[in-house]
C-alpha cells in the first residue's frame, strides 16, 4: 500500500527531472542551432565552408585551453593566467629555437613541459597554503606577460623554418571538394583535445575526482581522494594546454611573440561559463564547453559579417556571459522547485 501511495509523486519527479535535464543540457545546443540558422539566412557569406572553417580556426586556440579551464572551474578554482602563459611560452620558444638555436623539436618539448611545471607550482601554492587560485593566477597573469617581454624585448623573434607553419597555419585533408583547402590543423588539435577531455571527465578516476574536489572538498578528502594530487594535475594540464596553444599560435604567426593571446583568458573563461560549468564548482561538462566555444565563435563571426562595430561586439559579448549565467541560475532555482 505504502508503495502505491508513494510512487506517483516519484514518477512525476522523475519526469520533471528528465525534462529539466534535457532543457539544461540542450538549451545551449538549441541556442547554437538557432544562431546558426539565423546567420545562414541573414548573414552574407556565412554558410560557406571557408567561413565555417575560419570560425573553427579562430576558436581553436581558446578551445584547446578551454578544456583545461573546464577542469579548473569544475574544481571550484579559476585561472586568469592562461593568455599570459601562452605568450610566455611563445616567447620562450622563440628564444630557445631561434636565439639559442635549440633543435625545434627540443624547444617545443621544453616549452610544453615548463608550461605544465609553472602551472603545477601555481597549483601547489594554491593547495598547500590555501591561497585563492584567483590571486595566484592573477600574479602569473601579470608577471608571465612581463617575463615574456623581458626575454624578447617585446619584439617578435623570427624566423622559424617554413615547415613550422604547418602546425598552426596548415591544413589536412586537402583536395576534398567540399572542404576546399582542407581542415586547419589547429582545428584538428582542438577536436582531438575535446574528445580526450570528454573521455577524461566522464570515464577516468581522475575526472571523477575533479568533480568531487569541486563539489565538496571535505567529502573528497574524507573519501580518500588526494586533493593535492588532483589539483596539481588539473593545473599542470591547463598549463600544458596554454603552452601548447602558445606553440600553435607561434606557428600561425611564425614568430615567438610576447604580444599574442591578450585577453585570451577571458574568452576561455567566457566559453566555459556559457557552457554551463558552475563557478561554484562540482558541475559542468566538456560538451557544454565545446558548445560554448562554438557559440562564441558563431557570435563573433556573425557580428563581423553583419558589419557591427567592434565596440558594440564587445558589449554584446559581455552581456551574453551575464545572460548565460542568469539562465543557468534560473534553471537551478526551477530545479529546486
Amino acid at each position: 500500500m505504502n508503495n502505491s501511495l508513494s510512487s506517483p509523486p516519484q514518477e512525476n519527479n522523475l519526469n520533471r527531472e528528465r525534462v529539466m535535464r534535457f532543457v539544461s543540457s540542450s538549451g545551449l545546443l538549441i541556442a547554437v542551432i538557432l544562431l546558426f540558422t539565423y546567420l545562414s539566412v541573414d548573414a552574407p557569406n556565412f554558410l560557406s565552408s571557408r567561413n565555417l572553417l575560419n570560425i573553427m580556426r579562430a576558436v581553436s586556440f581558446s578551445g584547446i585551453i578551454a578544456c583545461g579551464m573546464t577542469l579548473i572551474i569544475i574544481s571550484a578554482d579559476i585561472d586568469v593566467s592562461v593568455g599570459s602563459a601562452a605568450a610566455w611560452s611563445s616567447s620562450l620558444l622563440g628564444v630557445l629555437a631561434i636565439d639559442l638555436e635549440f633543435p625545434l623539436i627540443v624547444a617545443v618539448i621544453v616549452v610544453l613541459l615548463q608550461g605544465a611545471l609553472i602551472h603545477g607550482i601555481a597549483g601547489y601554492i594554491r593547495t598547500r597554503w590555501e591561497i585563492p587560485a584567483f590571486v595566484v593566477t592573477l600574479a602569473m597573469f601579470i608577471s608571465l606577460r612581463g617575463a615574456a617581454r623581458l626575454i624578447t624585448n617585446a619584439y617578435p623573434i623570427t624566423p622559424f623554418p617554413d615547415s613550422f607553419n604547418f602546425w598552426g597555419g596548415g591544413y589536412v585533408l586537402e583536395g576534398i571538394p567540399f572542404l576546399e583547402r582542407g581542415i586547419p590543423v589547429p582545428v584538428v588539435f582542438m577536436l582531438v583535445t575535446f574528445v580526450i577531455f570528454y573521455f577524461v571527465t566522464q570515464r577516468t578516476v581522475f575526472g571523477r575526482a575533479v568533480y568531487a574536489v569541486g563539489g565538496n572538498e571535505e567529502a573528497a578528502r574524507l573519501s580518500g581522494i588526494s586533493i593535492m594530487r588532483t589539483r596539481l594535475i588539473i593545473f599542470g594540464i591547463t598549463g600544458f594546454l596554454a603552452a601548447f596553444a602558445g606553440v600553435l599560435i607561434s606557428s600561425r604567426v611564425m614568430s615567438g611573440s610576447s604580444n599574442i593571446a591578450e585577453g585570451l583568458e577571458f574568452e576561455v573563461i567566457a566559453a566555459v561559463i556559457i557552457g554551463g560549468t558552475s563557478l561554484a564548482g562540482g558541475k559542468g561538462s566538456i560538451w557544454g564547453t565545446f558548445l560554448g566555444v562554438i557559440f562564441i565563435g558563431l557570435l563573433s563571426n556573425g557580428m563581423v559579417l553583419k558589419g557591427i562595430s567592434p565596440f558594440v561586439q564587445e558589449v554584446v559579448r559581455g552581456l551574453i556571459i551575464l545572460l548565460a549565467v542568469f539562465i543557468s541560475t534560473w534553471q537551478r532555482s526551477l530545479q529546486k522547485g
Partner: protein
Amino acid sequence: MTPILRLENIYKRYPGVLALDNLTFELNAGEVRALLGKNGAGKSTLIKLLSGAIQPDEGTIHIDGSPVALTTTQDAFKKGIYTVYQEMSLVPDLSVAENIMLGRWPLTRWKMVDYAALRRIAEEALQQLNITLDVKMPVSRLDVAQQQIVEIAKALSFNPRLLILDEPTSALAASEVDLLLQIVRDLAKSGRAIIYVSHRLAEIPRIADTVTILRDGQLVDTITIAEATPQRITDMMIGHEWTRMTHANVKMQDNAEVRLRVSNLSQEGHFQNVTFDAHEGEVIGIAGLLGSGRTELLRAIFGLEPVDTGTIEIHGATVEKPSPRMMKSLGMAMTPEDRKKQALLLIASVQDNLTLASLDRLNSYGIISPKALTDAAQEMIVDTQIKTPSLDVEINTLSGGNQQKVVVGNWLSIRPKILLMDEPSRGIDIQAKEQIFLLIRDLAKEGLTVLFVSSEIEEVLDVADRILVMNQGNITHDLSAGEIGLDKLMALVMGGTYGGIHNE
C-alpha cells in the same frame, strides 16, 4: 512574588513529533534553573520559543504576570529575554567592544562610529562581570572562554532580565568552567533569572538552585538542587520505557585478532593518552558529550588531523603517516558527523555519491567502466536499502535517512575491515536508523570492526558490544555493554559520580 516567566500549557508540534506537550513552567527573579533532558526531549524547542524564533501552537507565555507574544527575536530582546547559544555569534576580526554592541554602535553627530562611547559601554558591560579585557582587541585573539564571556557581556548590554545559556561550557576546559559558573552566580544575585542548559552533571550542583527535567516534550518535574542526585536526574531523564534491542552482545574471544590498536594518542586541547584495542567483528560505541573529544579522536584515527603523540596500528603494523588515503588503502572507512558538509556531493547524483570512495577499486589503469559503476551503486542500493527513484537523481532530493544510507553505502563499497562512524543516526528517521544499525551488526558478524560515536546513549547500549566512555578528552571507562545499565552509563557520560571512579 510574581514569577518573571510563566509558561502555561504550551504545545508545539512538528510533523510526526510533539516537541512540547502541555508544558507549564515558572521561573523567579534571582533563580538559576538547570534545564536537563536527553537529545530531543524538547530543550531546544523551549529555548527557541523563549527567544522568539518559533511560536507555540497552543498556550501562553507570561512575563511579570502579563501574557506576551514573542514573534521575533527583537520581541524577546524587548521583553528582556536574551539567549546565548552554543555556537558563538561573534565576528572574529572585530574588536571586543564592536562585538558587544554589534549592530548598535553609538554614532557621532557626523554619523561615524563613536569609538570613545563604544569602548565605555563595552567596559561597563564587562565590569558587571568583574572582568577586565582589552576591549580594543580583536575577538579572534581571545581564547574560547574569553569569547564566551564576550558573548555574555553582549547579552548583558541588552540588560536582560532572563538570560538563557545553552551549553555554555561544552567548549571549555575545566579551569575555565569555574570562572563562567562564578559569573552566572553573580548575575543571579543581581536579580536576573537564568536558564542554564548543560549535560555536565558535575557542574549542576555548583550553579543551579533548581533543576527542571524534560522528557519527550513533557516536563517531568522541577526539583531543588538538594534533591537532585545524579541517580535521580538520570532516572527522570530516561523514564522507564526503554528496553534494549534483542541482540546478544558478543563477548570477544581472547584470541580474536586485534584489527586496530590505538596507543597513547594525544591531541592538544582535544584528547589525552587514548589507548584501546578493537578486534575483528567487534562493535565499539564511544559515548561522550559534545566537546568530549569524541569527534576529534575519530578524525585523528582516520588521519584527518595530526596527533601530538601516540601510535595507530592496523593489523599489528604501525601506520607511519596517517592520511585518509593511507587509511582507506589499509581497509579503514569513515562516515563523518555532518553528512551535508563533509560527506556528500550535494549537486551530484546518487550513483556518484555511492561510488566516490570505491573509484580506486572500480577502474583499470585509471579508466572507469560505466557498467562497473552502475553495478556497484546498484549493489549498495540493495544492501543498504536505499529508497531512490533512480541512480541518477540528485542526492539532495533524498530524505535524510536515505542520504545517510548513501554515505554508509559509499564506504561499504570499498569492503572495509574497519568502519568509523561519527553520529551515524543524526537527523534521520527511526526506520533508517534501525536499518543502518542492523546492517552494522550483520557486517560485524562477518568480521567488520566498527567504532562509532553517538550522543544517544541508548543507541550505544543497543548496538555496541563494548563501550568506551569519553569525558573531557579522556577515555574514563572501557565497559562491556552487558555490564552496565542506561542510568549508570548516562551518569558516567555526563561526568557524574558512579562508583567513585570519575568526577568533574
